[in-house]
């Protein structure tokens, strides 16, 4: 694999072309806007929390292949998880993406495909954007920024 194939793995390209849960949500209980001023990526994350669980989660917005596929992977992975599980996973993923940890836990599944981004410092913020935005929305915030 050359470095481009490493960054843009099949899974990434697939989620970029056919993003999952890519729509607004009318009855969301939590919502936040995310913004990456570097490249202008804008994302909205919607969450419906019911009984301490993420009953539904979706996103919409403009973004590069990395930020779009990252958001798509995130929504796929977290649907049905408890809030605690979701927050824990946010932490693990962000730590992996920012190189704070070297190990890639098995539990990440497809999300591990994002690891190629660590070799591209300028792109890390694209990959973390949706995760930070989710964290922000769960905390009750309105906007997240990766400046």
């Amino acid at each position: 694999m050359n470095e481009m194939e490493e960054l843009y793995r099949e899974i990434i390209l697939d989620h970029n072309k056919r993003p999952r849960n890519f729509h607004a949500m009318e009855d969301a209980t939590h919502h936040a806007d995310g913004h990456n001023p570097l490249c202008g990526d804008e994302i909205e994350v919607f969450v419906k929390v019911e009984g301490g669980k993420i009953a539904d989660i979706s996103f919409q917005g403009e973004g590069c292949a990395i930020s779009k596929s990252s958001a798509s992977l995130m929504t796929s992975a977290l649907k049905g998880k408890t809030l605690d599980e979701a927050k824990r996973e946010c932490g693990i993923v962000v730590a992996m993406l920012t190189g704070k940890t070297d190990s890639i836990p098995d539990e990440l599944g497809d999300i591990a495909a994002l690891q190629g981004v660590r070799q591209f410092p300028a792109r890390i913020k694209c990959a973390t954007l949706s995760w930070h935005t989710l964290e922000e929305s769960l905390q009750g915030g309105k906007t997240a920024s990766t400046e």
Partner: protein
Amino acid sequence: MSDNGTAYDVAKVRADFPLIENLAKGAKPLVYLDSAASTQKPRIVVEALSDFYLKDYANIHRGVHFLSQKATDAYEKARETARRFVNAREAAECIFVRNATEGVNLVASSYAKSRLKPGANIVLTTMEHHANIVPWQMALEGTGAELRVVPIDSRGVLDVEAFGKLVDENTVIAAFSYVSNVLGTVNPVKKLTAIAHDKGAKVLVDAAQAAPHRKIDVADIGCDFLVLSGHKIYGPTGIGLLYAKREILEKMPPYQGGGDMILTVSFEKTTYKGIPDRFEAGTPHIAGAVGMAAAMDYMERIGLANIEAHEAALLSRCREKLAPIPGLKEIGTAPGKAAVFSFTLEGVHPHDIGTFLDADNIAIRAGHHCAEPLMKFLKIPGTARASFGMYNTAEEVDKLATALEKIVKFFA
């Protein structure tokens, strides 16, 4: 043919730029197509800085000793070079600032702010860089005055008629770019200035993207203010130029206070020097002024007409080679545009294009290019932008085309 009758030899020009030369020789030769963000520096500019620091350095305007005199002479000679570069009437109309951004801030704060009352307005255009938007918004805040925005068409051509209607007797300043950093559009600055002056409005021209590509002539344009950045015209960072007419400068209060800009100071009353000193508080970027002058000298020696012609040829080739690429759309198609080539690729985000090209050692820029309102108007999240400088070659354009073809296949 150059101004002095010799042919433009891009290989010779490249040899003047060590970074371009050295990185081009690497295993994966660098193709630098990001000159609109900042230009690389010819050896002569870097040497002017070193020589100044190592032979003539001292603080200026202050010492009686000969080093200080030498440094002062070098600084004021740089001002005279700047005067010639923009064709101002006198050197005192040339204020050294940090960059184009600071030039706009100075005018917005010292000239415009006090004139912004309810009913007054400032006129900008849809294609402005944030540097020519945000300072005006900050000056307008809380004044009750209004911001007006002149529309452009889908090619990126300014609506001159609308400009003539939006500018009125209550317009404090009309501020517009000479050349758009995204679209390459060259605005009819002389005509716009005449229209604005007819209504009694003052004019600021943002020449940050024009100065690298063409001769700037404030006498011909007739504008009241003009700004440019040294780092975009092959000069050092931290230095730029604000040109302003003497009669306007003389009536403007200082922008920053400190040493070197005062006549007398007491705790009861302080009086300020005349121009240009009043606007250069504290120890200025002396070496930066000297370095920017070296860059201006260099550009003039290469010949601004030559640079313009060479870059126009690169732009033509770029269009020709990139047009056949499936899904590629050129953003900005104003007639006579400058050598700034923005584009989008269907299904591939500009940021991904940038990363891919970087992997092929082609440096371009991707994003909103500090022109978010323009992106909103164009209804795109950003563009990929290849921008050309005097050192770029036709082969580099061809490499860009080849790399883009690969990207299209990858994302297909």
